[in-house]
């Protein structure tokens, strides 16, 4: 019992499994609490975790060492008297001569027990040994009171006596108490009819109750009325679960125990409860339940602190979605109108397609001739050197300028820096509401390096998306005239005129001139015929191109309507989207861990005896 070695986990009753899952929970809590250190609320959760992690860790390491029971309560409630009664002798000064009586804490331990694990120095405590049966298997600490030290620092408002020193200025009992309580595993709260509704005591107990089971004792039983029912109501309103309150008279118990007499009922019940609830295997249970409670308390605190942020985080996610839609809308409108406006460029692409595919026939030859003549014509209406123009001109889209040049390229797409800044500024506001700041999210105005990164990505994506979209559109249109029927009809119609001209010329020569002896027409007819052939050729060309061109606007429209699915503008708002996701994930993860914890509590909690605990949902 008295030395600390690695604790055997194997216990009958399936403990290993349960403890493994608790260990896993603790591990997940540690990971979760540290998973988003850039977010201040998550940092606060982490700070809270760092407070309780050593306690959980210690509880697991020292699973079977004896429990430290801290006796706390207001001054004059008989803490020291009770400790003396339990120890069976006057170890701790008690009495009514001056308040407060106990200043330095007194640690009562069984003889021969090694206390090297107890931070006696830090507690400013005096250690005394006792052979009494009641304290044979626990370490008892008589704590200083919390209610005689002035609220530090003494507020200067109001009291004209502020200048004069008071004796209580040297009273640091509450600070001493706060140094002792962290070492305690169980709290034994002592109170009287006068003190059970003391605000200061309630505050101190509430601060140290998480993860520490409690025993409640009303003393001064021989003088005071029984206030246990009212005290229970008060404790329950503070969030405690109170299975039992003991009532005894410590003075009488101490007298009887000093005289070697049989203790009275109230005192005996307390001693029995200590034996049943705090010793041996029960100690392991206390520690385990305490750890579970503590983890639960941490989770509840975290949930409470994160609760007001759920709304803002969701609003930020919704804001990212709506700003994204807005930017995509702007981009889609501008890209659409620019594509529609580049009539000549489309013409050229589509013509090129037809010409490239049609070979051999007279009409095809005609088209080729026309094309090569047009090729000499300077490309005069190239409306600027924007991405769309370049793409439509069949140039590669990978020449993307960096920095402010990048912005210019984006602005040619119709998305101005002002619009992007507007979206980012709106999201900055939403982020601030969710307490997100740099470095998780950037500022409204993108700086040079970010512009280079985001705008570059935006341009690349847009170029890739546009060029594949244009290719698809062109391929689709090509399909309309690529069929042999249409082509042969065109060839036939063109050849028909050609044949007709040739036949007419042949007829004129052979029949009219040679046979009937008419004068030869000369080149006049042929010149005329050539003009007609050319006009006919252009007419057919116009028909063929019209067939390709018809419905181009609606096709562009449908191409542009698919733009949002391409998530082109995502890089511009990526930091906000990522932050919204990360924070939502953090909150969700916390919820999941809470559910895990509840499940674990349902599985592990054994029917509690006389020990109370802090439920947490106070008032």
């Amino acid at each position: 019992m008295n030395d600390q070695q690695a604790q055997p986990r194997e216990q009958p009753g399936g403990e290993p499994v349960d403890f493994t899952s608790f260990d896993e929970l603790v591990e997940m809590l540690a990971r979760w609490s540290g998973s988003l250190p850039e977010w201040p609320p998550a940092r606060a959760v982490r700070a809270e975790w760092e407070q309780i992690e050593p306690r959980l860790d210690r509880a697991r390491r020292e699973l079977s060492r004896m429990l430290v029971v801290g006796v706390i309560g207001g001054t004059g409630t008989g803490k020291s008297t009770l400790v003396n009664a339990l120890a069976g002798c006057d170890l701790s000064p008690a009495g009514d001569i001056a308040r407060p009586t106990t200043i330095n804490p007194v640690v009562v331990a069984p003889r021969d027990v090694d206390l090297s694990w107890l931070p006696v120095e830090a507690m400013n405590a005096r250690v005394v040994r006792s052979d009494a049966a009641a304290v044979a298997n626990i370490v008892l600490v008589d704590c200083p009171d919390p209610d005689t030290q002035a609220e530090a620092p003494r507020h200067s408002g109001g009291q004209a006596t502020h200048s004069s020193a008071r004796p209580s200025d040297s009273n640091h009992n509450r600070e001493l108490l706060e140094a002792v309580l962290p070492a305690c595993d169980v709290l034994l709260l002592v109170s009287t009819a006068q003190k059970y509704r003391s605000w200061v005591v309630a505050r101190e107990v509430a601060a140290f109750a998480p993860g520490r089971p409690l025993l409640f004792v009303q003393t001064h039983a021989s003088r005071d009325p029984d206030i246990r029912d009212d005290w229970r109501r008060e404790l329950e309103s503070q969030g405690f679960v109170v299975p039992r309150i003991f009532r005894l008279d410590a003075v009488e118990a101490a007298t009887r125990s000093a005289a070697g007499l049989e203790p009275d009922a109230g005192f005996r019940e307390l001693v029995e409860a200590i034996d049943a609830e705090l010793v041996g295997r029960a100690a392991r249970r206390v520690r385990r339940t305490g750890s579970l409670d503590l983890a639960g308390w941490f989770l509840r605190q975290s949930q409470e602190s994160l609760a007001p942020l759920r709304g803002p985080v969701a609003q930020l996610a919704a804001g990212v979605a709506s700003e994204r839609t807005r930017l995509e809308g702007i981009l889609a409108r501008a890209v659409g109108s620019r594509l529609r406006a580049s009539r000549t460029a489309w013409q050229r692409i589509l013509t090129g397609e037809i010409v490239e595919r049609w070979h051999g026939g007279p009409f095809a030859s005609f088209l080729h001739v026309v094309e090569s003549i047009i090729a000499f014509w300077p490309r005069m209406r190239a409306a600027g050197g924007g991405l769309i123009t370049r793409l439509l001109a069949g140039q590669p889209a990978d020449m993307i300028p960096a920095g402010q040049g990048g912005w210019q390229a984006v602005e040619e797409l119709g998305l101005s820096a002002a619009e992007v800044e507007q979206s980012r500024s709106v999201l900055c506001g939403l982020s601030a509401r969710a307490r997100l700041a740099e470095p998780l999210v950037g500022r409204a105005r993108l700086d040079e390096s970010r512009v280079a990164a985001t705008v570059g990505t935006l341009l690349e994506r847009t170029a890739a998306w546009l060029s594949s979209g244009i290719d698809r559109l062109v391929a689709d249109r090509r399909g309309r005239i690529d069929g042999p029927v249409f082509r042969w009809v065109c060839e036939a119609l063109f050849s028909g005129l050609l044949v007709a001209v040739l036949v007419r010329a042949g007829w004129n020569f052979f029949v009219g001139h040679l046979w009937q002896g008419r004068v030869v027409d000369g080149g006049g007819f042929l010149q005329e015929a050539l003009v007609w052939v050319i006009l006919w050729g252009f007419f057919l060309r116009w028909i063929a191109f019209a067939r390709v061109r018809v419905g181009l606007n609606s096709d562009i429209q449908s191409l542009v309507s698919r733009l949002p699915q391409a998530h082109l503008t995502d890089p511009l708002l990526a930091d906000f989207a990522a932050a919204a996701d990360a924070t939502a994930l953090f909150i969700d993860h916390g919820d999941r861990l809470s559910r895990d914890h509840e499940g674990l509590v349902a599985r592990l909690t054994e029917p509690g005896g006389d020990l109370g605990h802090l439920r947490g949902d106070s008032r």
Partner: protein
Amino acid sequence: MASFPRTGFAAWAGSVEELCGLIDALQPLARSLGAPDPQADEWYGSLFGKLRPQVSREPVLVAAVCGGTNTGKSLITNTLVAAEISRSVPEAARTRHPVASLPQGLAARTDLAALFPGFALAPWQSVQDAIDLGPDASGNADRLVWREDSSGRQPARLVLLDTPDIDGTLRENWHRAELVRNACDVIVAVLTQQKYNDAAVRDFFAAAAAAGKAVVVVFNMIDWPRQRDRIGGWLATFTAETGVAPLAVYAVPHDFRAAEAGRIEFHPLPELTPDGAAVDLAVRLADCDFDSIKLQAMEGALRVVLDPETGAGCWLDSFETSAKEWREARRLLTAEARVRVELPTAPREIVWNEIWQWLEPRRSGLDLTVSKVYRVAGKGVSWAARQVGLVRSEAERREDFSTVELAALKTALGDFVERLDDACRRNPRLAAMLGARLVDGDRAAWYADLERRHASLPLVSEDYRTFVRNELDRFAKENPGMVQFILTGLNVGAVARPAITVALGMAGAAAVPAAAASAGGLSVLVHHVGDVVVGTAATIAGEGALGLTMAGLKPLIETLFAGWSAERGRVLAETLHDVVLGDRLEEIDRLANAATAPEVTRARRLLVECSRDLGRDMGREVSR
């Protein structure tokens, strides 16, 4: 009955009343300044709880029984008034409202509500009142139950009160006990061996001692006579801690059964009482020197109000400190929140058209004909240029301009918000004033508002038209010879490169008259910083063909263009003022000037006057 000596207070009465009025009037300002709430201060309680109600009214002596939870206050009160006015129960902290026992006829003579400020009064119905009473119709949960002494034995000027506890878990009980402490003259301090040295108990009575209350100490639940010897030590601790100099000390033995029956016994402790007399507590309260106790309580209260370190003057000092911080905030805003808006080059015909219209009736026939020829020719050239795609149509150009202009305004708005954010980060006062607006405000709505204002602003507004006419009229009157110049000068091409700064300003008018005309009172200023270059860039058609630089015209044209661009910038200023910031700038301005408010000065003078009345030594400390 001897009449109460009013002379001592007569001098204060007017000052106290006026001071209360001033402090009431200053409280809203203090709240917006971020100065501490005076209602939590002792001096405020003394002034409003003690001095104001009693300085000019029928003097009654108020004695209150105060102490920690379950120390037997109700039982002691019941014994003192010889009737059960407040139920005494074993459970702690049950008395939640003070119960007053008044001498016969007092309720008819006196306005009780004024005697106990802060409380909603209720006539006594039963002993349960102090435990069960809920808030009154107006929602005031601080109730005070009163009843007149039925026996007629209570001295005619003595009011006795049972009070809630001062250390329990219900903090509103503390507050009520403090209100009673402020209003009373004598305190019966109920102490027990468990509680005489609790910090909460000490603090309560230390404040009472500081305010000059007379205190009678009752040690209750004494193991009598075993603990009689201990009481001296306990009392010494108590008086050293609190500064209380008790009038008398009593012990009440612990006797559970007697207490349940409502009987208790007061043992005078003459060895601890200054006058050494073993007088019964009720008799002592009835016989005590009302006038000197009253005077002492009033002086004590006044001393608390005048205390140089914690009194009302100190609160007034906090105005100066806060106002200084607000001045710094204002300086930061003016310096940092200043945005330069680069507006796009204005479609030049906008200003010119206005000038032409003004000129039309003043021009010679020849000039008009020539001009018409130019215009026709210009139109032809423009049409041709549009067809080949070299020049965009006027509508297109206006649309382009509008888009670019809106983008510039949006950029400026974003810039502004970011600067305000930064300023808030650097200055906590600004953060308090504007932070919530910047964080909780719907920024999308700000931009929507800017878009709406911009869309509804015509390219040339009536305001601007009037402004141009007035400017030209004035110019023509001042320079009669220059009209001819104008006519020639109009053929000069001009390009405005307008840039304006929009700044948060607290004083002074906008630099640009057109903006000032309709933006009067705006705290968001629009300054024109643009340059107008006259004589450059004649366009391919229209008035610029003659090309002539007229240095004399430059200021005029500059003003005309500047007015126009300032009007564009006003859209942003209006959005900033109406939607983003509201009237917070005016508020900051008001707060920065708070220290010089006449109420503050007057209140200070009153404090000095009161100190002079009270004694020279204090007066020297308070006056600044």
